[in-house]
């Protein structure tokens, strides 16, 4: 337990480092492009337009205000998938820093997730008004949105600890991650709703942690209803599991990172 405390204290003590790492990612990614951060909106925008076209007009999915339904799921999904892909680079991409100085290495995956989270917040800023466009009434349930987002942040952080620490040993984990994300995307109710899934398949989707998060977002924004308690519990359990496994693996392996780089 004490290792968790030191990790947490390190994050606070080194907040300037976290800030600089996130600023570095922003600069490196968007420097030299006039539109800057706006580029990060292009991907969700294209997804929403194309999926609306394909599923609303061609496959005729029976959900009204379908673009709103899509926005609700795609934005948190993009955060998750972007963060997971970037996290495999969190350690190996900063090799030049950790070969030089001793500092709490937890900061590297944390900063990667934070960078992706900032992109998510920016996307929300732009897409959130859509909620008011499509829906005249917004329920107070929307207050649940930020806490759930925070939980998703922690869940993703756990995955990032896990992936960043095995990528130092196996460099092709990244390719595997990309395939896994593609499979996961279609097994998550993002473009369809969970109620459309036939009985036997539902089980498959219910064991998917992302499905829990996404259905909760859809419940509180799209449907305007209280999420089922078991979905909530499963979300919390997945987060604990992900952080627990991810961080203990990271702690155990971090002593050899430098030697493996």
């Amino acid at each position, binding site marked *: 337990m004490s290792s968790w405390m030191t990790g947490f204290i390190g994050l606070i*003590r*080194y907040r*300037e*480092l976290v*800030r*600089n*790492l996130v*600023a*570095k990612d922003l*600069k*490196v990614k968007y*420097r030299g492009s006039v539109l800057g951060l706006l580029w990060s909106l292009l991907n969700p925008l294209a997804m929403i337009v194309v999926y609306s076209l394909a599923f609303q007009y061609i496959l005729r999915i029976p959900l009204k205000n379908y673009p709103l339904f899509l926005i609700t799921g795609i934005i948190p999904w993009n955060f998750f998938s972007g963060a997971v892909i970037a996290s495999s680079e969190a350690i190996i991409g900063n090799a*030049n*820093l*950790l*070969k*030089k*100085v*001793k*500092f709490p290495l937890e900061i590297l995956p944390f900063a990667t997730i934070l960078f992706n989270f900032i992109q998510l917040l920016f996307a929300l800023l732009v897409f959130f008004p859509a909620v008011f466009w499509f829906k005249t009434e917004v329920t107070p349930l929307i207050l649940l949105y930020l806490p759930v987002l925070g939980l998703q942040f922690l869940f993703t952080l756990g995955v990032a600890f896990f992936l960043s620490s095995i990528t130092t040993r*196996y*460099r*092709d*984990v990244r390719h*595997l991650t990309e395939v896994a994300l593609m499979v996961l995307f279609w097994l998550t109710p993002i473009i369809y709703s969970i109620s459309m899934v036939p009985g036997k398949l539902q089980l498959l989707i219910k064991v998917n942690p992302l499905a829990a998060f996404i259905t909760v977002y859809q419940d509180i924004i799209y449907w305007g209803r209280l999420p089922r308690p078991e979905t909530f519990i499963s979300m919390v359990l997945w987060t604990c599991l992900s952080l627990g496994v991810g961080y203990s693996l990271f702690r155990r392996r971090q*002593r050899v990172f*430098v*030697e493996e780089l």
Partner: protein
Amino acid sequence: MAKLIVEVQDLWKSFCIRHNRNDSLKERFISLFDGRRRERREIFWALRGVNLKVAQGEMVGIIGPNGSGKSTLLRIIAGILHPTKGSVIVRGSVAPLIEIGVGFHPELTGQENIYLNASLYGLTRKEIDRIYDKVVEFSGLEDFIDVPVKNYSTGMYMRLGFAIAVQLDMDILLVDEVLAVGDEAFQRKCLAKMQELKERGKTILFVSHALDLVSRLCDRAYLLIDGRVAMEGVAEEVTGCYNKKVPIQ
């Protein structure tokens, strides 16, 4: 005697050399079926029972042929690598390892790299603001500070790295064979700075192949051969014996 600031006791460090390294899950999987592709591991002992004591305010040289474990020793003292056996006690803060190819991000400018590097030490923004001008002035890179460091020359890299390390005001400075890259004027400036830091009570560990520099600057020196301390003592004597102790290949 002044207080011991670095105390290394019976330090052993092994590395696993992986011949035919299975770097990916794919290779790992193939090697299950194809024995020839299997990874072969060999243990290499970079340090074999090193003892070293450095008192505060000392400047200690570490010399030895390539592969004798000098850099590994510095990295363990810096806390970047961990000992396999033995103990290392460091009673003070350690400045960044100064060596060729410092930890900069190529896409960021000199200024941004100064902030990033200093924050690796847990410095706050205000503290960095305070040393920033001194770093730039010492490096002599005023005109290039807003240029991405990927456009820097090796010498400029080294200038910036050295300037950051000496301005961080840490107790211990580790210098790994770096002065060779700078031009003579900057080399003199660095040596003068090291002298000044030493007078202010800072401790310096200096790895170098330049025996004359070591004997001129350092109080004491250690000669490492094959991961063992072959000789230690007054810097002039140790450097004087270098050619006798190290076989010419």
